[in-house]
């Protein structure tokens, strides 16, 4: 009898587990399907190449938001990548096991746990008001750097740590300096992992709204300098949904966003797969 009941529990449990998986998959299909079905019909060449009108009308396309997004990501990466890689190198290659390292690690972990709105307020206080960059691409980018730094550092550090310790030993035993070892062996081996980290950060930057809302302003025009404001794709979705009645435009913009995110995910997976294969010596 016990056997039968064990089998029945097993069946029920499995049903529950499969149910969970199916619900998750359904959620994804509903969300993505809804956005794409509602949004894609409105996406056309004109939509992509005209500027939004701004204000309460919700008319126009998304050109300036695409430009702002690219601008913002470019500026962010220029600052983020060197600091992030440097930081990760310090943590994985140099950091001794002492109080200072623990403080730095604690800083990074805490930073990673702070919600983006807090970064936004911080950016507002420091960059927008104290340093008077006003609502601008620069303020937004600096805030994003603060926000993304923990992601960049931890992902890069993972990539560096995935490089076998034996490579380091071998290089040092051949009589290289520590920096030669890092720059010639460790970094090149970790490049696909680091690229993955960068793409991950780009993905997050594209999706970020809250902290940019209070640092970039909402100008619908194409920004002409670092110190001018702008709105990213995500911000545009928010403005359209909350301040206008142009839900169709909001959906169209959201559809564009989702397609970008899908592409970025695919790219990340592909790169990560390559990285793993390379570490296993299959490439």
């Amino acid at each position, binding site marked *: 009898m016990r056997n039968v009941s064990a089998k029945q529990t097993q069946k029920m449990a499995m049903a529950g587990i499969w*149910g969970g998986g199916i619900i998750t*998959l359904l959620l*994804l299909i509903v969300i993505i399907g809804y956005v794409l079905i509602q949004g894609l019909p409105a996406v056309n060449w004109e939509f992509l190449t005209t500027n939004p009108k701004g204000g309460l009308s919700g008319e126009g396309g998304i050109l300036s938001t695409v430009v702002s997004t690219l601008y913002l990501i470019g500026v962010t990466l220029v600052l983020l990548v060197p600091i992030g890689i440097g930081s990760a190198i310090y943590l994985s290659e*140099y950091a001794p096991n002492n109080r200072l390292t623990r403080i730095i690690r604690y800083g990074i972990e805490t930073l990673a746990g702070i919600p983006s709105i807090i970064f936004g307020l*911080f950016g507002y206080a420091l960059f927008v008001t104290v340093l008077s960059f006003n609502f601008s691409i620069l303020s937004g980018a600096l805030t994003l750097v603060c926000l993304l730094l923990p992601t960049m550092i931890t992902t890069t550090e993972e990539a560096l740590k995935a490089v076998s310790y034996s490579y380091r030993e071998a290089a040092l035993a051949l009589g290289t300096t520590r*920096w030669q070892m890092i720059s010639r062996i460790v970094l090149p081996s970790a490049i696909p992992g680091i690229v993955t980290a960068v793409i991950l950060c780009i993905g997050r930057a594209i999706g970020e*709204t*809250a902290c940019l809302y209070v640092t970039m302003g909402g100008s619908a025009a194409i920004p002409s300098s670092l110190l001018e404001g702008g709105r990213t794709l995500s911000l545009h979705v928010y403005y359209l949904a909350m301040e206008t009645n142009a839900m169709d435009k909001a959906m169209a913009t*959201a559809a564009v*966003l989702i397609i970008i995110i899908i592409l970025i995910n695919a790219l990340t997976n592909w790169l990560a797969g390559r990285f793993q294969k390379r570490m296993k010596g299959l490439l």
Partner: protein
Amino acid sequence: MTRYFTDKLAKYIVFISGFTSFIILLLIALFIFREGLPAFSEIGVFDFIFGGVWRPGIDQYGILAMIVGSIAVTIVSMIMAVPLGIACAILLAEVAPSKIRSILRPAVELLVGIPSVVYGLVGLVLLVPLISNIGGSGFSILTASIVLMVMVLPTIISISEDSIRAVPSSYREGALALGATKWQTIKGVVLPAAKSGIGAGIVLGMGRAIGETMAMIMVIGNSIAFPRFTFRCRAYTDRQHSTGNKLCYRHPRERALCYRCRALYFYITVKQRSYYLP
């Protein structure tokens, strides 16, 4: 000897960049407490946290309604997300054949990647009218909780899955060799062994739920009265005050208050971190 010079130089440069994050953290703490603390002394911590009324016009600054709103949304969404997330993690790690896994896994990753405004938007357009059929306007804790559930689900799934996978297969083999069914093995051996990892996943998911802003503003409405289920309420409203309406900063008093909430929140985050991080 240039290579020795490069070696030294590189060491200092990476050390400085390593220290950047900590400096950023210090700056954040500095700014938020500097702006927030004076208001605390002005109104008093007790009144601030347990004051039921937020009405800057008549000098009433209590955030109790927002705290209750936040807690309610978090709890309801976690109640929905935790069982679903764990079930899905078990499916991915233990049950599903690799073909299904190769569909489900990217799906979960995609859920992480979708920007929160898109969640908010879908919630606003799809869910709000749906809930309003049940009663109220649709801008409610329930709506917010469902949206939040979808948002924290991937966090819980991926962290739980990783920790389930990290359980050595010898444990499973040991249990199966004793004649246990697959479910008995999962329940009796795998889940207990992966307990701490799953716990971390839940806590991280909760962190994401508490900190989420944009999607919440879009689906929860902006009421400052005490929340009733399915009715308008405002979760942790000061967020919306500062973010949703930049005008609030015109009133210096109110701006200070916003920062005070920040300070409180910051403290909570730091505390919460220290619980589940080694």
